[in-house]
């Protein structure tokens, strides 16, 4: 059965880093809070830790079970199945959002005349191939290519250092705490809360690996890369300009004189976003396989891929609508999946273990 696939803790942490970076590296998380985006981000980071520990506790209760199986055990057959179907929908939805994100980025920035569906179909093909090959292969591929993102981000940060204008970060908390908190909630649900999906993958960790260490390490590393990105964009561009651009990091990198490497950021976005899509896609197919008591996730790869492709084309009208949705509606939409259901599961599991 699929369960036999095993990944090492290095691979898991690299997958996690790729997942958290995901599509976040082409936007500025928390940009609603204007110049306080970094404060919003820090708050979200801390909140992310709390959510993380909640998911981790859930994992500790059932170390050999995926989220779908946990739902099944804790909520019973009927309710569990309904919640599982919702979760699988959530995974597919998230994957298609990231996919559309990438498609819009490519369309806006580099290839304005290429039809959207073509780029997306290529992307779905690549990720589908990776998912079909299984978790191990996905993890190995990530291991090969994710480190380049890290090098790239640090490199860009260093090149842009002379152009930093720290006064862009001021004034701090000029409009009070409320907008910052609102923004930070959106950041909490955008990259950090989505890690609930990793509960589908954690059971495949090799027994020698320690989940806690891997979690904390990758969370810190990915978080600091993102923080670096926010500070870079804020101090180079300023909050107003960020609010006016669709994809601020792309615009930031264009500020480097005599060096036009903005095409490369799309390539790196493809890598990190691809990892995120692969994980969502994998989680969805594994979830369906477990829901249907199937031994193999591979038969579901092509159907889910077709759904993904259709969904991501149909889901938005345009890029601004997409960004607006990601910032305004996504947090609310995610509350049950990222916060309510996991907390409920945790509480139920405490009762269950007390009275077996």
């Amino acid at each position, binding site marked *: 059965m699929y369960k036999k696939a095993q990944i090492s803790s290095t691979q898991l942490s690299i997958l996690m880093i790729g997942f958290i970076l995901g599509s976040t590296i082409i936007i500025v998380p928390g940009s609603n809070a204007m110049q306080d985006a970094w404060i919003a981000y820090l708050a979200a980071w801390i909140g992310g830790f709390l959510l993380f520990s909640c998911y981790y506790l859930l994992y500790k209760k059932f170390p050999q079970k995926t989220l779908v199986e946990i739902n099944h055990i804790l909520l019973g057959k009927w309710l569990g199945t309904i919640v599982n179907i919702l979760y699988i929908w959530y995974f597919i939805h998230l994957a298609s959002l990231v996919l559309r994100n990438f498609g819009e980025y490519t369309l806006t920035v*580099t*290839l304005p005349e290429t039809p959207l569906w073509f780029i997306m179909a290529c992307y779905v093909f690549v990720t589908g191939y*990776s998912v079909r090959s299984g978790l*191990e292969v996905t993890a190995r591929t990530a*291991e090969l*290519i994710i480190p380049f993102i890290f090098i790239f981000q640090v490199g860009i940060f260093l090149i842009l250092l002379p152009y930093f204008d720290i006064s862009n970060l001021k004034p701090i908390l000029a409009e009070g705490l409320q907008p910052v908190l609102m923004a930070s909630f959106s950041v909490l649900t955008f990259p950090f809360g989505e890690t609930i999906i990793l509960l589908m993958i954690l059971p495949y960790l090799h027994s020698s690996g320690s989940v806690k260490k891997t979690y904390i390490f990758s969370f810190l590393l990915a978080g600091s890369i993102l923080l670096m990105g926010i500070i870079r964009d804020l101090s180079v561009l300023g909050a107003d300009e960020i609010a006016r651009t669709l994809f601020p990091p792309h615009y930031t990198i264009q500020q480097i004189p005599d060096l036009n490497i903005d*095409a490369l950021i799309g*390539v790196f976005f*493809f890598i990190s976003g691809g990892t995120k899509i692969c994980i969502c896609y994998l989680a969805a197919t594994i979830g369906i396989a477990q829901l249907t008591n199937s031994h193999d996730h591979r038969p579901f790869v092509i159907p889910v891929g077709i759904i993904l492709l259709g969904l991501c084309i149909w889901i938005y009208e345009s890029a601004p609508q997409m960004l607006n949705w990601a910032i305004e509606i996504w947090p609310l939409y995610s509350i049950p999946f990222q916060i309510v259901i996991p907390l409920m599961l945790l509480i139920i599991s405490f009762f269950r273990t007390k009275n077996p």
Partner: protein
Amino acid sequence: MLRRIMGLLQYFKYKPKRHIHSDTSVLQYGDAIPTTLKELISKLKLIMNNDGDLVIRSFKLSAINCSEGILVYINGLTDKKSIELNVLKPLMAEAQENKMKYLKNNRKVIDIIINEIIQSLNCSTENSLDKIIEKLLGGSTILFLQDEKTAIIIDAKKWDTRGVNEPDTESVVRGPREGFNEDLITNITLIRRKVKSAKLKFEETKLGRFSKTRIVICYFEGIADKYIINELKGRLERIEIDAILESGYIEQFIEDHPLSPFPTVSNSEKPDVVVGKLLEGRVAVLCDGTPFVLLVPRVFIENLQVSEDYYTRPLYATILRILRLLALFITTTLPALYVAVQTFHHEIIPFRLFIAITAVREGIPMPTFFEALMMVIIFELIKEAGLRMPKPVGQAVSIVGAIVLGQATVEAGIASPLMVIVIALTAITGFIVPPLDGTVFFLRICLLIAGSILGFYGIIFALVVIFIHMCNMKSFGVEFLSPLAPISDGLKDTYIRPPLWSLLFDNTKFRALEDHNPTEE
């Protein structure tokens, strides 16, 4: 339709049993040896179709003074001098004592001949005519006696072989210059001479229904993984073929991914390379009749490593390794990158260079993609022509290549000078990674097409697909990208070449996975 195609692919993956000549009767001559020499001679002549190179020498066995015998051998495969001196001469010489012994003790003639008369190193007896014929064709000399159902096989072979020369495929600046030749025994000797250890095992089998080619599996006991050895033996056993003319035949039967552009079995012509890889835990397959020795498992990083890396000083070797990686990257992606930049990403070129490029490209009618494709193919054609040509004509090819590729195309306005530079760089770097020669061309074309369709995105799509494909691959249970992904202990000796004392001959580099069963429940 899809099912059919999948079925075809499955066919390639798991070769079903196919019996070409399932009846082996062609090769059977009846087991028993005819008792009278006359019958025997006529039968032998019948079997061998009265061939001119079959020599039958009848003589009288004066040594035991009892009967007649014949010596049979194939002309040209036998060491005639040795047979004359050590077999024929003692047999025909008068020797009273032996005769007496025979009479007194009632011992068998065969025993006496082997133990006391023949002075040859390698003697054995054989009853079955089939096997005798096989040995005869293999170069042994056979001694038949009147009224005996057993024949004596004298193993005194001699034929002309090429000397131990420096191989053309793997020339080195520093390191031993000897290479294998076509003779199996010489090749084994070359390996044995490098390592004087009883742990070095040679196991012989025969392959090929007609050719009966001798195949030797060679490995270090205790270092090589048992799983790999058994898997290799199993795969060799399943080979059904008429003749093995080169180890390439074996390679195609035992490789894991016949349809992949990446080879999963490596080969070498040099004993020091083979011994080095044996010490790393690999298994070698030596095949009679070819200097190329197969080595399994093969992992990707081996393509970037050369035996010379370990003979030169670590710093220099490390730089060379990184350069080789760069060369591999350039040779596969440079035409694609050029096309992508020209077609989609003008902004990435510095402005002045862009103006220069545009000025140069002005008169060229074709899109960059076709220009690049054409030049890549022309280069490959010239390379192939240079390989197959007799040496004196080779010069003509290089002149034509230089003028056609270098000057005329540019002057005629078919290709831009920049494209010529790109192709030249691609070609030169292609020679730096010779083990991946065929692969690189395939990847180059794939990336070129991808790059011309979607620019950088196309290239990265194609590269990631190639990465996933490589991650999927296994060679004899070992992941193809082994020390790189999944990251494992061998990582130390990949991109860099650490000093030898820090490597400490880490022999456990290639252990196949614990979990070998491809069928999971």
